[in-house]
């Protein structure tokens, strides 16, 4: 009887082992990613598609700038963990922030907006000069270097996104912005973890509405 039990255990173990070696599990997300990047688009087309189709939902989920600045002052680590995206290894992180206020000055390379904050107010600088960073590409964390065969394509996507923002958002805003105008904005901020601003941030606007 005992021998029979041992025999069955051994047979069961062998069958299990055979089954284990016959079936392989792969992560689905890896396949999805491959499919997404297998689409034969140029870096310029990828930037355009991202700007038109994939970026708008993120704009809607931007964080209130007062809430963010409060957390940044009180608990910078938590603010970075909760609201930022970082690409690779480095100190720069990207945030998508929204707010509203009154234009207090229009300058050559920026527009300053006064935003009410509790009982006080804050001056938020909206960049209206030529922007050279990677905030738009990197703020959602959805475009990564690993998506591209070579990093030049990855960099081209950023350059093209900056051009789109400049043409479609910054230039129209720059021509209409006047002191005293009420403005609602959504913008990308790049903040260095080692140089956290105490009470202010500079934003690249990605959505603007003037009253």
């Amino acid at each position, binding site marked *: 009887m005992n021998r029979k039990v041992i025999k069955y255990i051994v*047979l069961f173990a062998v069958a299990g082992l055979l089954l284990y070696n016959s079936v392989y599990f792969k992560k689905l997300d890896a396949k999805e990613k491959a499919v997404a990047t297998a689409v034969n688009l140029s870096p310029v087309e990828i930037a355009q598609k991202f700007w038109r189709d994939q970026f708008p939902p993120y704009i809607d989920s931007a964080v209130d700038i007062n809430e963010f600045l409060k957390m940044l002052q009180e608990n910078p680590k938590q603010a970075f963990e909760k609201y930022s995206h970082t690409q690779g*290894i*480095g100190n720069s992180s990207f945030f998508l922030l929204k707010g509203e206020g009154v234009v207090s000055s229009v300058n050559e390379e920026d527009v300053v907006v006064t935003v009410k904050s509790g009982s006080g107010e804050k001056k938020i600088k909206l960049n209206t000069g030529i922007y050279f*960073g990677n905030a738009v590409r990197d703020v959602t964390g959805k475009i990564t270097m690993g998506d591209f065969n*070579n*990093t030049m394509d990855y*960099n081209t996507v950023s350059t093209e996104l900056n051009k789109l923002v400049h043409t479609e958002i910054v230039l129209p805003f720059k021509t209409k912005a006047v002191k005293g105008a009420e403005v609602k904005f959504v913008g990308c901020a790049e903040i260095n973890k080692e140089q956290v601003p105490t009470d202010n941030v500079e934003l690249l606007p990605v959505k603007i509405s003037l009253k």
Partner: protein
Amino acid sequence: MKKMKRFSSLLLMGALFIFSACNSGGEKKKAKKMAIVVSTLNNPWFVFLAQTAEAKAKALGYETKIFDSQNNTATETNNFENILVADYCAILFNPTDADGSVANVKKAKEAGVPVFCIDREINAKGVATSQILSDGYSGSVEIAKYFVEVMNKKGTYVELLGITGDNNTRARSSGFHSVVDNYPDLKMVAQQSADFDRSKGMEVMESMLQAHPDITGVFCGNDAMAMGAYQALAGAGKEKTVKVFGFDGADDAIQSIKENKLMATGMQFPKIMAEKAAEFADEYYKGKRDFPEKIPVAVELVTAKNVDSYMGFGKK
């Protein structure tokens, strides 16, 4: 009958052993030896990169050997061939050529040896196990913004390029021009390769100065060329009027910024990249297989304002 049963049990145990061996995907456990293949040992930056990778691998318990490709893809291929017959468990790889090095990495992959690229990229996905790369484009953007500021948005300048075919050469030059070309009063009057080499940097700068004696700025794709260019400018008595910008964060460049000779450099972090590659290789050896395809490592602008926070090849 008893013998028969014993024989069956032995047979089953044998089957168990064979299938257990197969479970590791047919991978034979290799020796704890890492090969470090570096594009050149004729440049202190790459010597530091190779030695740091070696030190980290040794600290993790591996035997190591450094192979010098002498900036030559044929030498690099020979290095790979030697490595692949010598039972190394991983290759920490600084490629010579973004396209030309792909075949070598493919051969290693076919032989079951993981390759971790450091600093320089290969133009392929799914071949190297992971690529830990300096974000040279964004670093050059930061240098270019400072260049525009220091040059007061006007003047003529020249550019010394690195090795043609290396993605870092393209990334640094493109990043720089993505900014500077927006300022029409900043005019580039000459652009030439000096192969990332100090002596060639000096030679090229000397010849450029003869053709363009009125330049006020030089952007160099690495610090070795910047040091060579500065030497040529000093020889011509123009070191005070021509502003020199480098890239890498090499020891002598940091010292030169302190002495107000070089204006700026882009600090890469070879220590971070080399150590990360060795750590990844160790994790691979221990069974991990899920690594990011490419990881950018940020480059930081170093000028006279913040140079005291830095030392050669990194932060203090």
